[in-house]
């Protein structure tokens, strides 16, 4: 239980989280350049190898090196997840703040949009779009669609916060200091929801990655690009789980889980630390 105690400690959480995230960024951003061969191409290695020195995570039934495949998959998934999370949080937070702060017709229009989008179940629409864009969604399109369906969540929350923030005196002071509405939103109100936004960001990274893999698993994402989702897709397609090729299917799953834990630790560590800093004299 001593290990658990460490998690009480903001820096420890933060550093462990940062370490994990950095590890993934490293694996995803740098290692792919060193891949000995394009891991997407089949039969660059013998098939169905168990992990060994030459193939650290073994090979797939298609003769791909799982380790290098994983590095590529991580890169694409990370990019997708981070971009989706970044834009949906950005758009969501900004529009939510704007709606809550401005009120009036802007609020009404934005709230309506949020409500309406929230009511439309995204997965069936994504499946439809998969058909619309030619049966197989390219990653950027998946990304755009995910942003479209994900921004209303933070927006709704943030709007509620902004509504109460509007009543806070310091917002009036900021206005009398000549701050523009945008600056008031960004500099004065946003910090109060920054912690929440970070949590939302992290959750959306995961939503991005996992929705993509859900689409991939039912064969609708871009099966020829390496993402964690398509890796799982191919593994499932070749029955890796039942055939007890656990490394192949387990590697991407574990990667998703660890990445989430890393991001989670960073966000909770950050909020713990900033709380501690503001409290200290």
């Amino acid at each position, binding site marked *: 239980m001593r290990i658990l105690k460490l998690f009480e400690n903001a820096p420890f959480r933060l550093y462990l989280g940062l370490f994990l995230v950095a590890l993934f960024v490293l694996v995803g951003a740098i290692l792919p350049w060193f891949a000995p061969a394009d891991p997407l191409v*089949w039969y660059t290695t013998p098939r169905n190898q168990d992990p060994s020195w030459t193939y650290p995570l073994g090979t797939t039934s298609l003769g791909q090196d799982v380790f290098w495949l994983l590095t590529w998959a991580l890169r694409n998934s990370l990019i997708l997840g981070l971009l989706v999370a970044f834009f949906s949080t950005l758009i969501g937070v900004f529009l939510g703040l704007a709606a809550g702060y401005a009120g009036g017709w802007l609020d009404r229009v934005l709230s309506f949009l949020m409500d309406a989008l929230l009511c439309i179940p995204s997965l069936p629409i994504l499946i439809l779009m998969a058909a619309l864009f030619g049966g197989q969604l390219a990653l950027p399109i998946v990304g755009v669609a995910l942003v479209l369906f994900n921004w209303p969540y933070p927006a709704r929350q943030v709007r509620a916060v902004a509504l109460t923030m509007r009543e806070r005196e310091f917002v009036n002071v900021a206005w009398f200091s000549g701050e523009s509405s945008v600056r008031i939103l960004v500099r004065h109100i946003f910090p109060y929801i920054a912690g929440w936004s970070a949590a939302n960001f992290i959750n959306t990274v995961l939503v991005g990655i996992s929705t993509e893999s859900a689409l991939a698993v039912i064969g609708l994402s871009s099966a020829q690009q390496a993402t964690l989702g398509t890796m799982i897709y191919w593994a499932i397609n070749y029955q890796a789980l039942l*055939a007890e090729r656990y490394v192949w299917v387990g590697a991407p799953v574990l990667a998703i889980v660890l990445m989430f834990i890393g991001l989670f630790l960073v966000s909770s560590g950050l909020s713990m630390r900033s709380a501690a800093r503001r409290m200290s004299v």
Partner: protein
Amino acid sequence: QEMTDVGTPRAETLIVDMLNARVGNPTNMNMYQQGVTVNHGMHQLALSQLYDIDTAAGTQIPGLAAEMPEALNEDFTRFRVPLREGLTWSDGEPFTADDVVFTAEMIRDTPALAYSAAFIDAIASVTKVDDHTVEIETTRPTPRLSIVLGSVIYGNAFHVVPKHIWENEDPATFANFPPVTISAYKYMDHDPNGTWFLWEKREDWQNTEVGQMIGEPKPQYVLFRSYGTEERRVLAMASNDIDILTDISPESLDILRNQNDKVRGWFTDFPYANLDDPCERGIHFNTSIAPYDDPQTRWGLALAINAQRASIATFSGMMRASPLAIPPTSVLMDTYHQPMSQWLAEFTLEDGYKPFDPDYAIRLGEQLRSEGVEGIPEDPEALRELLGVGWWKHDPEQATKLLQDAGFTNDGGQWKKPDGTPFTITILAPADFEVQSQRLAFAVANEWTQFGIPTNVQQMQAGAFFTAENTGNYEVGSYWGSSCAITPDLFVRMEAWHKDYVRENGTPASHNQGRYVDEELSALIDELRAIPADDERIVPLGTDILKELVEGLPVIEMFGTSKFVPVNETYWTNYPSADNYYEGPWWWWSNFKFINAQLEPAAAD
């Protein structure tokens, strides 16, 4: 006594995997309505066709009819159809010519049934001669009436219905539930959510065509059920909850054999799969779109493929290659592939290059053996019989030359089309309804990408896929199109290549979705149209047509379909298999009723 979870004794119940998963409207068994699926046993056990198919021999056989139709005139527009005597419906009423005539008139008079239009288009009239004979007139010369009204592959839309039941109903709305059936089984129970259907053997099974032709079926009950995803179906068979599975992947069969030693494939050893499926897989082109309108391009692309690698990638090599536009089934191999291998070996492209590689099977055999696969025959002839007579060479140099001759350029590893734009290919592939074509698409994409042409695979769900294919909204596709054939008479298969069926891109085409125009080919097809299936010119004509298709290569034909259709021998035995080839393993076809009647209960240990 062990019971199934639907309450029947397990030892008396045959459990069969349902082809199209769950049925959404289980209490509608009116097979004439557009959205009604009858793959839940109705089609396989309870209904019957006028003519059925003997899949082992590759010939049509009489079903409800007593004999094959007899043409009454020279131009094949009038036929006498004698009906089997002594048959009764499951409610005891006798089956007579009245039922047949009623059915024909009902279809004709009910335009709301989609089939009505198709029926009227082909059949002019059906009249009763006596209780067990009808006469049929067609709208145009139809040398093969049994194909129009009976099963060749899977089944046929024409189902005789009991007049005494249907005459008081509106067929457009009638649910036909519970159905009165004509074959040896009758409806017993079903799941309101459509996951399973239970059929029970009729006490009067003697009064059915199965009873007359084969004898008493042993399973007292047949349960058709859906287990959902492939993983679940595999787990179900591994735990003996299902006796017969429809298509699965080779990996799944591998798992099953490891998990349960009562499970077997078509072959007990390599290649496990049945290779006699009457549909072939290959890479199709929309030949109306540049640069695929040039046979040089198509040939170039064909020679850029390493078929050996593609075979392993697709199904671990458990496939039979075919350079011809007909599936390499045992029957057709004997009729066409083997006799034509000499011609193939000598066949030259325009520039004198000989593209055929007769040793494909031998080299693949070696490679598989080196990977530790057991049970590969040593004898070259046996290998050719197993893995195919040969295929096109993998010759990137020649491929480059052909492409360059066709106007392509390659600077610095980047292929450019004749019009100067970069050459990339998109292969349209089934998303999750046909695993072999899907994997083949990825395998070929892998080959072309390695050759230097960036190729990606565009997977589409069934609806979208067929819409794209029929409207010509694709360039390269991986599926069978209409590439199915089972009898040496190639009419059914080749008719589809006729230029008459070519439609503009954007308009749906019912045949010839590749929009291939070849005058000589069309002339040969016209000839074939005019002769009946038992004419002696059938095979020579078929051979000529196949040669024509090799030259033009509108499709890079690759492999016959390998059907991994495992059975579990825990409760039932005497399934058809490579060693016991009394029928092919198409459990979802109308002839399943004949297989079912020959199964034996496993000896209780």
